[in-house]
């Protein structure tokens, strides 16, 4: 009996083994190696030198330029989250409360941008926002402006892209939490004399806070770690921490430098995600 139980446990482990190994070999070990490299002295002739140093961290953390870029990246993240939230909330609210037969179609519309790669969506924005793009073309022809507006290769273009690309995550998160609120609560508030807006403000909005929190943290993390969007829509004019990491590690061939920045970024992301998971757990406990 005891032997067969151990055998059974072992054969069940086989189900998990491939995934466990794959993630270990191609995820845990590479990240560990990246961490290891971040403590190695920099070299101009090879990837890194033997030994151990804190120099890379000291250098980055005392480098005003690194802090400026990190600050701008985080600020850009906050701005994206706020804009995303403002655009997504009405949509999510309507979607969550919709009883239309087109509801699942609308849901498809919301998540379908996720099916289109980030490069393609950025390309779409380029066609719209370029100096010779559709928007400038329309505005020029209408005589509203005399010279093309600088709509991309700047922070504006990057923000437009970020908001559009990560908005579905916000909508999904908000819709989920609004749906979980019994609509009768709002009706009750209104029957007690609250206006529609007051009922929303006092009941639905506070109750959807878990969705707002989790959606915001998710979009924030995705935004600050975004690489393709600032690269494509920002041109060479905007620099974010992910771009800086790749530039340092590859273009300047400074592995330890880039690796140490990556570790700093990693710490920020993991911290935010653990808050995200805490928020989610808390929200889920509230629902049960």
């Amino acid at each position, binding site marked *: 009996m005891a032997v067969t139980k151990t055998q059974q446990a072992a054969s069940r482990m086989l189900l998990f083994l491939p*995934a466990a190994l794959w993630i270990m070999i191609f995820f845990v070990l*590479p990240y560990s190696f990246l961490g290891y490299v971040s403590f190695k002295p920099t070299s101009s002739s090879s990837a890194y030198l033997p030994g151990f140093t804190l120099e890379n961290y000291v250098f980055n953390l005392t480098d005003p330029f690194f802090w400026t870029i990190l600050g701008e990246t985080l600020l850009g993240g906050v701005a994206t989250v706020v804009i995303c939230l403002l655009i997504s909330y009405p949509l999510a609210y309507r979607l969550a409360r919709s009883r239309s037969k087109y509801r699942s179609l609308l849901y498809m519309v919301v*998540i379908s941008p996720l099916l289109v790669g980030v490069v*393609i969506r950025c390309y779409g924005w380029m066609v719209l926002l370029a100096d010779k793009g559709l928007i400038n073309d329309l505005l020029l022809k209408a005589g509203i402006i005399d010279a093309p507006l600088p709509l991309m290769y700047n922070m504006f273009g990057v923000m437009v892209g970020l908001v559009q690309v990560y908005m579905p995550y916000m909508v999904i998160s908000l819709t989920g939490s609004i749906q979980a609120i019994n609509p009768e609560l709002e009706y009750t508030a209104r029957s007690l004399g609250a206006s529609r807006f007051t009922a929303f403000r006092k009941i639905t909005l506070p109750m959807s806070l878990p969705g707002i929190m989790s959606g915001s943290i998710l979009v924030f993390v995705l935004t600050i770690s975004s*690489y*393709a969007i600032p690269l494509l829509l920002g041109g060479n004019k905007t620099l974010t921490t992910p771009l800086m990491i790749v530039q340092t590690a590859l273009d300047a061939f400074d592995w330890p430098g880039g690796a140490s920045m*990556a570790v700093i970024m990693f710490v920020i992301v993991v911290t935010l995600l653990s808050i995200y998971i805490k928020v989610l757990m808390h929200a889920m406990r509230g629902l049960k």
Partner: protein
Amino acid sequence: MREQKKNLTDRLVDVMVFLAYVFLLLPTVIVVLAAFNGGEYLHFPPDGFSLKWFSKLFATEQMMESFYFSLKLALAASVSSTLIGLGAALYVVRYSGRLASILRPYMLSPLMLPSILTGLALMVSFYSIGVGGKTFFGLYAGHTLITTPYVFLVVSSVLYNFDYSMEEAARNLGATRLQTFFYVTLPHIKNGIIGSGVFAFISSFDQFPLSLLLTGPGYSTLPVQMFDYLRFEFDPVAAAIATINIVLAYGMMFLMEHSVGLKTLYGGKK
């Protein structure tokens, strides 16, 4: 049926919601329009319908090559991640017991961390052990890695919703464990498996930052190829291949919605 009269706020919200939908779909629609537009730039009024960018695309060898390369890569990665993810989901949901609270985050971690950092970590590691960062295997390993969590997530949520008494009923009626899995369990989680496999395929096909760092000469994925193309040229050949890509992704989703139901993908019950 008569509805309650809409006030100004309602109408304002209606407009905002409508604009939000437009905003979501705009770049995709514009890319498709640009692909069929006669001119080099999308103007208003447009330059008329044309298929010339498609014919130019078919003559652009690098684009077509990377298109087929991406198909191959996405197929290999999604098949692998489906098998790996399915096994892991079965184990974690069924047998891991209290360990699940550790194993779940472990399985999801590749999805959580920025793929650009994962790409960097992989590239640096591959170089250091002398494999070289830019091989098909490197891309395949990376793509499988970041698509496995999707499969795991979807299949495990389907398994959590699965009514175990159905398996017990089958056992009670004389089916062995294996028979129960194939006759009862598998038909139930099949949709989740197919759905997550398709989703894994699409996200591998669209993956950019990871591929950018692991792509080498002769091993260029489509998004990377498009990215390179857009740096030097700005003509709608990119729009033409993007349109094919979009049609492919939407087509797969459409087929899936009809055969499987998309809800399985965002964890809803059927």
